[in-house]
C-alpha cells in the first residue's frame, strides 16, 4: 500500500525538487500541493505537473505533509496538519522562536503524529561514513570541530524571502547554522552549550546578516566553530558547501558532503561543478515515508529542531550582547 504525501505551501525553494522526487518515489502516492497563497500554489502545481488542492482537502487526503512554507509560518501549517492527524516533515529551521518551536513539538505530541525535520546531511553518504568512523572510535575522544556551510547569495534573490526578516526570521544565522550543528549533534551526540557570534552584513542592500561566524563549546568541552555565511560569489563554481572537520585524541576526519562533482567548463558561461553524488534530500524524504510506513519516528526529530533553533537564537543573543551566551534547552 502506498503512503500518501502532500506538500503544504510552495514557498520554499526546495518545493520543486521534493515534488519531482515524490512523483517518482516507489511506494509513494504524491497527492499534490496546497498553499495559503492560491495563485503561487497553482503556479507551482502547474510547473510540477501536480494537482493543487485547498489546504483542508489536501490535509484530508494525505498520511504525511511536507511543510515548505516560509520559516515564520511553520507553526500554523504544522498545527493544521497535526489537527488532521497528518504526520509532518517540516522544513528547517523548525521555527524562528522557541515559543513557536515548542508549540510545534507539543502540538504533534498531543495529536500523536510524527514530526520530522528536513535535514538532509544525516543522509549524505560521506556524512554517514563519517559517523560510522566516529562511532568506531577512529578519532578517539573529540577535542575540536570546524565546520563550514557557505552559500551563494544569489540563491536568496531567487527565492525571494529567505533574506526577508519577516518571513525568514533572520539571515544567514537562521538559514545556515542548523545543518552543521545538526551534523555535529548527530555524529558526536554532544550538545552546543555556549555560542559566541560575529555577525555582519557584507552585501549592500541586505536587511539581514550574511556573515555568520560562530565559536561554540560542546557539552564534552570540545571547541567548535562554524562559518555559515552567505559569502560565495554569484559566479562561484558551486552553490556552496557543507564541511566538517572533527579532530580527536586518536585522529581526525573530514567530511565534505558535496565534494563529488565534475568540473564543467562552458564557453561563455565559465567553470562550474556538476554534482554526481547521491542526493541526501532523497534520503530525508525516504526516511519520512519509511517512518510513516513502519510507524517509527523520523531520524531527525522535532526535538532536534528545537535544540538547533536554541543555538541559532543564542547566536543572535550573543551578537546583541557582545559576549558568549549559554544555550538553554
Amino acid at each position: 500500500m502506498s503512503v500518501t504525501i502532500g506538500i503544504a505551501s510552495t514557498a520554499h525553494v526546495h518545493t520543486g525538487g521534493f515534488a519531482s522526487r515524490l512523483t517518482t518515489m516507489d511506494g509513494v502516492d504524491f497527492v499534490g500541493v496546497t498553499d495559503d497563497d492560491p495563485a503561487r500554489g497553482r503556479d507551482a502545481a502547474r510547473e510540477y505537473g501536480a494537482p493543487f488542492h485547498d489546504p483542508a482537502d489536501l490535509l484530508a487526503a494525505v498520511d504525511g505533509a511536507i511543510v515548505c512554507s516560509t520559516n515564520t509560518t511553520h507553526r500554523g501549517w504544522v498545527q493544521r496538519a497535526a489537527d488532521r492527524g497528518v504526520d509532518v516533515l517540516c522544513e528547517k529551521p523548525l521555527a524562528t522562536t522557541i515559543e513557536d518551536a515548542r508549540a510545534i513539538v507539543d502540538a504533534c505530541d498531543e495529536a500523536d503524529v510524527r514530526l520530522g525535520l528536513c535535514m538532509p546531511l544525516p543522509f549524505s553518504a560521506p556524512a554517514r561514513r563519517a559517523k560510522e568512523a566516529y562511532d568506531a572510535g577512529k578519532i578517539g575522544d573529540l577535542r575540536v570541530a570546524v565546520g563550514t556551510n557557505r552559500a551563494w547569495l544569489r540563491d536568496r534573490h531567487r527565492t525571494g524571502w529567505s533574506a526577508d526578516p519577516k518571513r525568514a526570521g533572520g539571515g544567514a544565522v537562521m538559514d545556515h547554522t542548523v545543518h552543521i550543528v545538526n551534523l555535529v549533534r548527530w555524529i558526536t551526540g554532544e550538545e552546543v552549550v555556549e555560542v559566541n557570534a560575529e555577525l555582519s552584513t557584507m552585501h549592500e542592500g541586505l536587511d539581514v546578516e550574511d556573515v555568520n561566524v560562530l565559536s561554540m563549546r560542546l557539552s564534552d568541552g570540545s571547541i567548535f566553530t562554524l562559518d555559515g555565511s552567505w559569502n560565495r560569489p554569484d559566479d562561484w563554481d558551486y552553490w556552496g558547501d557543507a564541511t566538517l572537520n572533527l579532530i580527536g585524541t586518536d585522529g581526525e576526519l573530514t567530511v565534505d558532503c558535496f565534494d563529488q562533482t565534475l568540473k564543467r567548463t562552458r564557453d561563455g558561461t565559465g567553470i562550474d561543478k556538476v554534482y554526481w553524488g547521491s542526493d541526501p534530500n532523497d534520503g530525508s524524504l525516504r526516511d519520512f515515508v519509511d517512518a510513516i510506513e513502519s510507524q517509527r519516528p523520523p531520524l531527525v526529530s522535532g526535538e532536534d529542531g528545537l535544540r538547533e533553533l536554541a543555538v541559532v537564537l543564542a547566536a543572535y543573543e550573543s551578537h546583541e550582547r557582545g559576549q558568549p551566551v549559554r544555550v538553554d534547552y
Partner: protein
Amino acid sequence: MMVSVRRTPTAGDAFGDPATEYLSGHCLYTRVMVRIGILGCGFLATAHARRYAGMEGVEVAAVAAPDEPTALAQDVPNATVTDDAIEMYDEVTLDAVDVCTPTTHRELVVPALERGLDVLCEQPIERTTADARAIADAADTTDATVMPGHTLRFVPEYVKARERLNAGDIGPPGTARTFRQSPFGHRHDPADEEQRRGVLIDLAIRDFDFLRWSLGAVERVFARRRRWDDHEYALTTIRFESDAVAHVDARDRSDLPFVTRFEIAGEEGLLEFDSEDSAPIEIDSDADTNERGRDSIGDRLGTDPHRRELEAFVGCARSNEEPPVTIDDGLEALRIALAAVESASAGRPVAVAEVSP
C-alpha cells in the same frame, strides 16, 4: 646604521636580477658589503644563513647562540662563532643583526639597536607588549631600524592575494579564513607554558599580521583553544574595524604535514588558496635522493619567501629606508595575539584596545 664601506649609491647600483624586481620600490645596492650577525642556531637561523650565503654583498660575519652553534657554523665557515651576543656586537664588525632566537628578543635587540645595528627580529617580536615597546623605544632613539620577521608578507600567494584585494578584484572584503597546520611550532618556553600563550602567539600571529595587513585594523577577537599530548589547536574569530569577520585556525601538530590555506571573500568575488592543491612539480623516483631537510617553506620554485624577506632587510640596512614591515606592525600583531590569549583564558571577546600598546 653602520655600513662597512660608505659610499653614495647611484642608479646603476640597483639589482637587475628578476628575483629581486619586486623590491623595485626600495633601493638595493650590491657593492656595499653588509656584515650580518646571526643570533640563534635553530631551523630559522640555518635557513637564513644558507640564503645569506647565496646573496651578493652579504656576509654572515658572526653567529651567536647560548650553546655553541657548531652545526650552523658549518654553513658559515668564515663566521666568528660565540655563545655571547653582546660580545659578538662589541668585538665583530657588524652592520646588522638577524635575531632568530625563539624568545628573549628584548635583551638581544635593544643592545644591538643601541650600538646602531639594524635588526631583523623573528616574530613575535616579544612575548609582552612592555618588552615589545622597549624594543620600539630603543629603535626610536637610534638611527638603526628593526624589522619584525613576519615572513608571510613575503610568501608569494599571500602577497598576490593582498595585491588583488587592493586592486579591487573582489570588492570590499566581508569574510576571511586562514588555516595553518604546522609541525614547526614547538617552543615550550616555561613562561609561555605558565601563561598559556603557545599556538596563538607563535603560529596564529602570522595570520593575524597578514589579515591586519590586508583587511585593516582589528577591533576585537574571540578565541578558543584545546591542548592535549603535545598538540595545540586555537580557533580565533576576529572582528575588524571595517566590520569584516575572519576565522583563524592554527594547529600545532608535530606529527602532521605543514598545510596552509586562506580565503578572502568580498562583495564581488573570492580569493582562495590551499597549499594541498598546489603541486607544480612532482617527482616519483626510485633513485636515491639526498634528504633536503626541514625547509619546506623555502622550496618555492624561484619565489623563496625567506630570500625575499632577507633581501628586503638587507636592502633597508643598506639604504637606511623604512623597512616594509615596521616595529609598529610587529607590535600590533602581538597585541592581537595577546588579546586572543586573554580571550581564550577569560572566555569573552577581547578588544585589541584592551591590550596596552
